[in-house]
Every structure is written in C-alpha cells, then in structure tokens.
C-alpha cells in the first residue's frame, strides 16, 4: 500500500486517463468535460507531489528501481505543468477535429505518466519501459491528424524512434554484461571496482546510450526527424514533443551518467562527447533555423539549438569534479525556463494559425495591429528564447554558461554566445515582422479562452521568473543536490 502512495503522482495521472476514456464512451454527450477531468487528474497529481514535499520522507521503492527524491519531485511538477498547458492548448483543435476526443486526452495523460516514471527511474529496465510508455503514445499523437502530412510525420517519428531505442537497448545490454546488474548505483560500484579493464567496451556502450537518448533530446546528428515531425504533427502535439520528451530525456541522462557512469576514467570521455555534440547542435540548429519560412519548422530547428545549450550543462558536470552539481542544477533551471518559454511560443503559434490559417512567417506581418496582446506575449517568449533580460531565458543561459566557464569549457561557451547572436537574428526577425510589418488585412481577432489561459500562464511564468528568478534557481539547486559527491 505504501508503494502505491509513493507512485501516487503517476497513478493519479493514469487513473485520470482511464476516467477520460470511460467518460467518453459512457456519456458521449458530455464531451466538453473531458479536458476538465484531465486537468483535475493533473492537479491531483501535483497536490500529491506537494504532500510528499511536505512529508519530506524521500525514499526508494520496488527494490530501488524507482526513486522519490527532490530530483524526481522537481520533474513531477514540470511535467504536470507542461501537460496541463498542452491540454488547455489542445481543446479547440480537438473539438474541431471531432473524432476520438477521449482517446486523445487519455494518450496525452499516458505520455505524462511515462515522463514522470522516466524522471524517477534508476534501473535500466525501468528506464526502458518508462521511455517506451512515453514514446509509443507520442508516435500515435504525432499521426493523429486527418491529413496525410500528419500520418507521414507519425510514421517517420516511429521508424526513427524504433531504431534509436534499439541502439539504446544494445548499449544497455553491454552495460548489463559488463557489470552484471541493471541498477544504476550497483552499476557505478561495479564500474569503479573493475571497469577499467573494459574501458573500450564501456565507451562503445556510452556512445550507444547517447545515440538512443540523443534522438529524444533532438541533438545533432540525431535531429533529422525534428523539423518534419514538428511541421506535420498537430501543433499542440509538436509543443508537447518539443518540451516534454526533451526534458525527460535530459532528466534520465543526468541520472544515468551521474549516478551510473560517473567513474572518473569514464566521465572525461563522455563529457568530451557531450561538448562536441553541444557545439554541433547549437551551430547547425541556428544556421538551419535562419532559412526556414514555416514557423513550426523554425521552432523545430531552434529546439535543436536549444538542446545544444542544455548539453553545455551535461559537458560541464563531469569536467568540474569539485562542482559536480553546478552543471546539473544549470540544466534543471534551463529545463524549467525552456518549458515556460517554448510552450508559450508554441501556444502563440496555435492561437495565430487558428485565426489566420497559415504557419508561414511572412503571414505574421502586422500581428501587432490585429491582436496586440497575443503579439506581445509571443514576442516576450521569443525574447526569452534568445536569452535577453528581463525574461527567464536570460537567467537560464547565464547560469548554464557560468557552469561551462567554471568547468574550463571556455571554447564551448564562446560558441554558445556567438550562437545566441545568430539565434537573436531569427527570433527577433519574427518579432519585427509582427510589430513593423504591414498586414494584408487588418481584421482584429482574439484567441479563445482556453488558449488565452495557456498562453497567459506561460508568459506570466516567463516574465515573473525573469524578474525574480531566485525561487526557481533554489528549486533547481535543491533538486540537483542528490548528485553531490
């Protein structure tokens, strides 16, 4: 019974998924209640998490395969928030689409529970199961739309995702063979004891793991699916993919590499790999984003570049052996900041494309005159993505660059700063279009209430935490403390 209490946050979400399905088939005339039930489930989950924070009784369960600690609690909040925003942003689209409403919300909630399990798991089998629990519904969601673009996006996402998880599994099998266990702390102990004899094999396994998770994080060279899937998938789903699965992949990678593969002879190697991938992702993502004309493809490439920024934190952790937690807390802060910012940008895109029926950047011209509040909110999110104060994105970038410098990765931080300038060019050119450009028609419009709520929550987060970042920073530092040596 106690175990059920510990996985309560995930269970609440899964029960809500079941209820949504039941309600959809038993009371079909009350379909508009479905998102309400989904949101209630997420609220219960967040409250349950809060009760664990209050009890402060952190523990491991199921033979140590799942952890309820400050780190997983941080991500429970992040994922509940992300999913709630996505549900709010989906309502209009789902109503218009008409079919399978219950299934849509149930799948979104299932993804959320998978992401939560992923942040909590510390065993290779559990990690694999949680990853697939979050991935398989995402494949379905990406192919949810009626048009052929959507099903094409779903199939592409699934095929590449299946190849990536096979690579990941082979890496896990090698680690199991070398250490004889799948539990991360036991892996760490076994590697520190006599792992040095298998160094070559361990590096191969590490590369396979990075390849598998790199796909989910959308870093170069595993980024080719990103623009296609973001463009083809329904926009709320693309928003979900861009923040949810990226955040979860970083959550689990931090756990695997800091808890399982943190042996000194190994960590120098993987931190170098992460540094190179970070530089490549930032550069390629930003350069490709400049030439895009479709805003969803642009946001896709920009999310590749942002994944590079995240990775500076991964590279920084291991090099700075004495400040082990700085890189981790930088990533956590970046995850939270990115969740607010990118969701805000995507919800803005949903609101605008609903009204003007286009995703082309040139059609955004003169948005300031047609819907001032919407244009202002999207502009703030774009400013935050660039990393200009007073937005939360500025603090996240500052913090992660600071972690890089403390870890002697000055060259990487320089590349990062140069890339921020490039990123500023294309983010702000969208903002310039909206404020300076001339609209072809000047019919005013407003976003629907649910979208206004989602966009408002995201933008207020961006601005409030941009002015007073301390609560978010101390939460990230608290959560990263579990990795202190």
């Amino acid at each position: 019974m106690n175990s059920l209490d510990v996985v309560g946050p995930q269970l609440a979400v899964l029960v809500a998924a079941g209820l949504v399905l039941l309600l959809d088939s038993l009371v079909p005339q009350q379909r508009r209640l479905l998102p309400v039930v989904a949101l209630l489930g997420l609220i219960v989950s967040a409250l349950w998490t809060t009760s664990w924070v209050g009890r402060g009784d952190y523990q491991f369960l199921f033979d140590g395969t799942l952890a309820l600690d400050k780190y997983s609690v941080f991500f429970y909040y992040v994922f509940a928030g992300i999913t709630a925003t996505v549900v709010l942003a989906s309502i209009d689209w789902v109503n218009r689409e008409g079919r399978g409403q219950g299934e849509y919300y149930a799948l979104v909630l299932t993804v959320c529970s998978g992401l939560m399990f992923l942040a909590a798991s510390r065993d290779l089998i559990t990690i694999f199961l949680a990853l697939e629990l979050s991935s398989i519904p995402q494949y379905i969601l990406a192919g949810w739309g009626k048009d052929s673009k959507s099903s094409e996006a779903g199939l592409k996402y699934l095929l590449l995702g299946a190849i990536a998880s096979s690579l990941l599994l082979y890496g896990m099998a090698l680690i199991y063979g070398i250490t004889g266990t799948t539990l991360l702390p036991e892996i760490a102990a076994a590697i520190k004891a006599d792992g040095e004899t298998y160094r070559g094999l361990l590096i191969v396994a590490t590369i396979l793991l990075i390849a598998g998770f790199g796909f989910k994080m959308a870093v170069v060279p595993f980024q080719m699916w990103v623009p296609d899937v973001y463009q083809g998938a329904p926009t709320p789903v693309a928003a979900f993919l861009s923040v949810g699965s990226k955040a979860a992949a970083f959550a689990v990678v931090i756990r695997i590499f800091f808890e399982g593969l943190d042996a000194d002879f190994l960590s120098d190697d993987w931190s170098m790999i992460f540094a190179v991938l970070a530089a490549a992702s930032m550069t390629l993502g930003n350069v490709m984003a400049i030439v895009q004309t479709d805003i969803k493809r642009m946001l896709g490439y920009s999310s590749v570049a942002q994944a590079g920024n995240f990775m500076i934190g991964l590279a920084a952790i291991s090099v700075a052996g004495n400040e082990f937690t700085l890189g981790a807390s930088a990533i956590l802060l970046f995850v939270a900041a990115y969740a607010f910012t990118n969701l805000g940008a995507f919800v803005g895109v949903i609101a605008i494309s609903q009204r003007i029926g286009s995703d082309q950047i040139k059609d955004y011209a003169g948005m300031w005159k047609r819907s001032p509040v919407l244009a202002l909110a999207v502009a703030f999110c774009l400013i935050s993505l660039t990393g200009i104060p007073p937005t939360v994105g500025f603090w996240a970038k500052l913090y992660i660059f600071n972690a890089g410098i403390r870890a002697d990765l000055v060259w990487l931080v320089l590349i990062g700063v140069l890339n921020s300038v490039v990123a500023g060019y294309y983010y702000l050119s969208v903002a310039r279009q909206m404020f300076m450009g001339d609209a072809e028609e000047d019919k005013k419009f407003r976003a629907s209430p649910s979208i206004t709520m989602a966009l408002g929550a995201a933008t207020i987060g961006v601005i409030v935490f941009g002015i007073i970042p301390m609560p978010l920073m101390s939460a990230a530092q608290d959560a990263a403390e579990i990795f202190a040596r």
Partner: protein
Amino acid sequence: MSVGIEHFLTVGALLFCLGLAIALSKRNAIGVLMGVELMLNAVNLTLITFSRFAVSERPITGQAFAVFIITVAAAEAAVALALAVSVYRNRETVDVDQLNLLRS
C-alpha cells in the same frame, strides 16, 4: 571446440549490425520495421547470453529484460503497422523515399 560466450556474443553483434544495415537502407517502411525487429532480437540474444554466462548475483535480470523487450516490441509493431496503413490510405505507398510532403 565448445560453444562459449564469445560465439553467442559474435552472433548477437552480427545480427545487430545486419538489422541496422537493413533499417537504414530499406526504402519500404515495413522493411525498415523488419530491420528494427532483427536489432531487437539481437539485443535479446545478447542479454540472454550475458545472464547465462556472466557472473552475477541475479542472473534472472537479463532474462526479465528480454521478456520486457519482446512485449514492448510487439506494442511498437502494432502501432507501426497502424500508422503504415494510415499512410497507405492517404498516399497509396509506404515507400519512405516518397514520403516527402514535409519540406520547407
């Protein structure tokens, strides 16, 4: 000559590479999926080998892992075939080279 751990592992590695080559070179979506299945089975073989030969406190872990992989692979294949059918209805092809609607 007796059959030892190295033989099993070599077969596993070869199968994995073959599967990866198939998955990356096939143009038919179903063919890619078959390559992926081959990779997953190579992983299963490797896991079972390790749990049979390696010194471990709980040798059952590798076998349990393999059972989970088989189950998840079945779920993934079901979704993959459903998506392939949906693409085929729209486009009358599942050739991945022809799936090129998504361009800037």
